[in-house]
């Protein structure tokens, strides 16, 4: 597995989760992965009626600060899934 250096202190998973919930309050967030590569699944009513691009942009916008710069804690999001909760 590849690893990428970061100067981030603390739980990256928790930082991702918190950042997404701060932007999308009803989001249910699952985070997996390590070594700078993450798999993120987000379920929220916010995505209803939005295209995949719009939905992913919303999530990426929430975690952009974790992905910028060479020492970013999140090097890549391998899979990002956005879902609307089933009724």
């Amino acid at each position, binding site marked *: 597995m590849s690893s990428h250096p970061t100067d981030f202190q603390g739980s990256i998973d928790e930082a991702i989760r918190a950042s997404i919930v701060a932007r999308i309050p009803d989001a249910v967030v699952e985070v997996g992965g390590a070594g700078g590569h993450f798999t993120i699944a987000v379920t929220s009513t916010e995505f209803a009626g939005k295209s995949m691009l719009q939905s992913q942009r919303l999530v*990426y916008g929430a975690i952009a600060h974790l*992905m910028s710069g060479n020492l970013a804690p999140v090097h*890549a999001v391998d899979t990002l899934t956005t879902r609307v909760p089933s009724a």
Partner: protein
Amino acid sequence: MAMSDTLRAELTQLVEKNPVVLFMKRSRKNPQCGFSAQVVKILDELVPQYATVDVLASPELRDGIKELSDWPTIPQLYVGGQFVGGCDIVKELAATGELPKVLGASVVATEPPTLTVTAAAAQAFAAAAVDAGGEPLHLQVDAEFRHDLYFGPREPNELEVHAGGLTVLVGRASARLANGVTIDFVEGAESGFKLTNPNEPPRVRSLTPRELQILLAKGERLDLFDVRTKEELAIARLERALPLDETGERYLNSLDPSAPIAFLCHHGSRSRAAAQHAIEAGFLNVYNVEGGIDAWSLTVDPKLPRY
């Protein structure tokens, strides 16, 4: 940090000028990231030619495109000046069959190409089709104009062409490059299918010394030019080769652009440069003698001195 106005203008112009642009890590032939590689693979199947931009070339570029698209990851696909998405989205569009629509008719062919299949070729295919167990015939042409004819299962997105009593399936990426292709079958010593593609730009073709010897022995029309220096010519030369000095150059320039011409040097690289130059000057049938006069000594005439 916000990007400079100059970079923003450059990026905007880039995505507007090219119908399809992929911002990726490294190049189409050598992607340096699994996500870039996946998108290249998907696009290669659909689009014969598209622009790629290597974001690893500069940190400003890499940050700039992320800012322009408001998208934090690479690769990024632009079609008609519009941001389409990253790897996940392109994969999703490909899986649902929507990608050809997104790419549009300007990029992906929707009309089947026109093909000509000669009677000899049709007959040869009929015989081969029996062995193929009923699988359809496909024609593929890639951006380097390598042609492939094969039997195989029908694939999604292929266009159906009827020519010479045959059905030929052509992938959308191949369709524009295949338009006007003639498929013939040649009998004899070098029997096989022969494809002529009018879309193919002229390029330098290779001749081994042995192939050159055969052509010359057959008396085929071919003007051979030796690009080596006077000193080298004094050591070894071919009788048929005209030195590319002032006289040689004047003669070359007097030839018709369709005249077959070949270039020779010591090992084949100076002559390749000269051959490429001739292509750029408008000559259509240009050959390079691979390995040069040294290879001629080794494979054709051991009496010719090596140096």
